[in-house]
């Protein structure tokens, strides 16, 4: 089976869908000729022509706005925001338009659209190349929000997102593009080629939206995580020898409440981890869901680990990033609580 980085897997998902469905078009800033600043669309213009993959003006609201019109026409646009940090100019088009088109027109018009964007920190990108804005999208009815944590999932989830008939926000943890970064920034990241989830089948396969995965089975506590934090939590549990069950949510909306509930009822303890800022973060939603579904099974308070409620700093990146020490410490607290 071919081995791919997350970048290659994402590129391959585009290529598979573009070959299969003439209505799939791809555009964004530097996306066409050059193939994207992270190379996620490299070669697509050459293979599928300028009509199907092209460069866009630096205008995020225009990119999403035109994509909505294309989707209403009957195409399946997949657009790239160069960084999640630059999605805000397009926020109105996403929230007021894409998310509500089906509803407000009672199905007269629909919006099969994917908005991809690299998310998260760990690359010394400072406050404008590091943010994790997922909660701004999970709060919006009508959107689906996806965060893959590995190449295999990235391809299968992106294919599902493109095939979905509703708008999907697809957040790609950029620190995972080249390997399963576990928070240990002093050692080089293991390449995906050495990780089982770097094995990516050729051709089409889909991972359904709304289904979480158990990355590591355990009985001492449940860790709810997504994106980069899945690998950080795994490493922290390994380092401390904690029998943690690590749930990779993969899709935040719709959320796999069933799997979460089963896991927390089994372990009786729950830790919620994300890189995004704490207050009103998606973790708050997860805590509420667990409290609602599992309250009488809980043996300890639910704990959250998240980014500090500050802008993402540059020099102090590793003091901001919730690494193994913070995640591991929180695991111990949940076990002691």
């Amino acid at each position: 089976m071919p081995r791919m980085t997350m970048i290659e897997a994402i590129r391959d998902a585009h290529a598979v869908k573009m070959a299969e469905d003439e209505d799939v078009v791809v555009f964004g800033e530097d996306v066409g000729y050059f193939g994207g600043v992270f190379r996620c669309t490299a070669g697509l213009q050459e293979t599928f022509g300028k009509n199907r993959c092209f460069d866009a003006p630096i205008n995020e609201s225009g990119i999403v706005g035109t994509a909505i019109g294309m989707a209403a026409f009957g195409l399946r646009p997949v657009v790239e925001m160069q960084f999640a940090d630059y999605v805000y100019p397009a926020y109105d088009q996403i929230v007021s338009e894409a998310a509500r088109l089906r509803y407000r027109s009672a199905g007269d018009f629909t919006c099969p659209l994917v908005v991809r964007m690299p998310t998260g920190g760990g690359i010394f990108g400072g406050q404008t190349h590091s943010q994790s804005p997922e909660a701004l999208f999970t709060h919006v009815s009508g959107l689906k929000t996806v965060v893959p944590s590995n190449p295999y999932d990235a391809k299968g989830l992106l294919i599902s997102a493109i095939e979905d008939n509703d708008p999907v926000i697809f957040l790609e943890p950029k620190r995972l593009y080249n390997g399963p970064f576990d928070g240990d920034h002093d050692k080089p990241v293991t390449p995906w080629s050495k990780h089982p989830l770097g094995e990516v089948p050729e051709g089409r396969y889909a991972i359904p939206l709304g289904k979480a995965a158990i990355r590591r089975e355990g009985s001492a506590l449940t860790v709810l995580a997504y994106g980069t934090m899945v690998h950080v939590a795994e490493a922290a549990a390994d380092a401390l020898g904690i029998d943690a069950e690590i749930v990779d949510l993969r899709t935040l909306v719709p959320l796999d409440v069933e799997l979460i509930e089963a896991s927390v009822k089994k372990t009786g303890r729950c830790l919620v981890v994300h890189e995004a800022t704490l207050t009103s973060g998606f973790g708050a939603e997860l805590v509420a869901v667990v409290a609602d579904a599992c309250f009488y099974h809980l043996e300890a308070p639910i704990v959250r680990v998240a980014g500090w409620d500050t802008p993402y700093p540059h020099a102090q990146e590793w003091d901001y990033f919730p690494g193994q020490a913070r995640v591991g410490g929180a695991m111990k607290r949940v076990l002691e609580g």
Partner: protein
Amino acid sequence: MDGRLKLHVPEPEVRPGGTPDFSGVKIAKAGSVRRPPVDVDPAEIRDMAYSIVRVLNRAGEAVGEWAGTLTDEELLAGLKTMMRVRAFDRRMLMAQRQGKTSFYMQCLGEEAIACAFRKALEPGDMNFPTYRQQGLLIADDYPLVDMMCQIYSNRRDPLKGRQLPVMYSARKHGFFSISGNLATQFVQGVGWAMASAIKGGDRIAAVWIGDGSTAESDFHSGMVFASTYKAPVVLNIVNNQWAISTFQGIAKGGSGTFAARGLGFGIPSLRVDGNDYLAVHAAAKWAVERARRNLGPTLIEWVTYRAAAHSTSDDPSAYRPKEESDAWPLGDPIKRLKNHLVLRGAWSEERHVQAEAEVDAEILAAQKEAESHGTLHTGPKPSVRDIFEDVYEVMPPHLRRQRQKAGV
């Protein structure tokens, strides 16, 4: 000059209590502006962004190179369409006053723009309208009863009670769902047109925006994408002089005209008498042909006047003289087309009075039928279950649970 800076805040020439004076508004004589070939180099018609295309002169004659795009029968049909729009607006305004709905917006004085424009389009073309283009639907014979049921949010509301009155959606009639967030549709329509070009079809888009809303980023985004990709789209600015209480100078700033906004983008840009049914149709045809022949976008500023209040929630006497509407130099579109047809011997005062009665009866009958399906506060309503439908194609589990909780 005391050497200190001072902020410039544009003000209209007159406020309530003052005497409206439009003598300073430059209006080209009917027939005086040339009709260039559709494949003209945009650089050669930059002056047209500052002039104004007009066909009907003060005497009611159709003059100049833009005249002659419509037969007498088509003009008569256009007149009746505008009359239907006006009568429809009148009845729905009254219905709102009677508490049968929450809100209404008229297009009084602007009827010619949407009605004549619609006639320049083909089936399959798509408008991305604002809330003031009800004429597009009525000119395309969209059922009046369905429009009213939407306004009443009743059981037969095609939009299931979800949208504010007048925010219609009618794909089959080339009418994109209205958002309510200003200007968002302007750039979406450009994308729709790009999609049509990507697919290599022959369908074009027409996007609509008000003078005030041209200040939104989405207007500029639309212009960028339309010019970059030469999208097959007609970019319409309806300059009705007002944006609620704000006069057009606040959005326009130092620019000479709204049409001139197109010049920096290299987009052919026209200004057109929006109260002249013949001029609207001729200019629309020109722009539509350009789009269909893959010659790219055209920007048109339709010069008109919002004769009524912004909406049923607005009272314009607080910010503009009552007499301003009558002083408006481009007149009333229905009267002007009527006079033209009378002059041609195709119409008469008697037939006009009779037609008015017929139109009123038609609207009244439609209203009766619509009200038999309920109004906002009385009679059958859309189902509460409908709150949860159409958020997604397939209802996800969390919505299913919430619907259960709601007990529906």
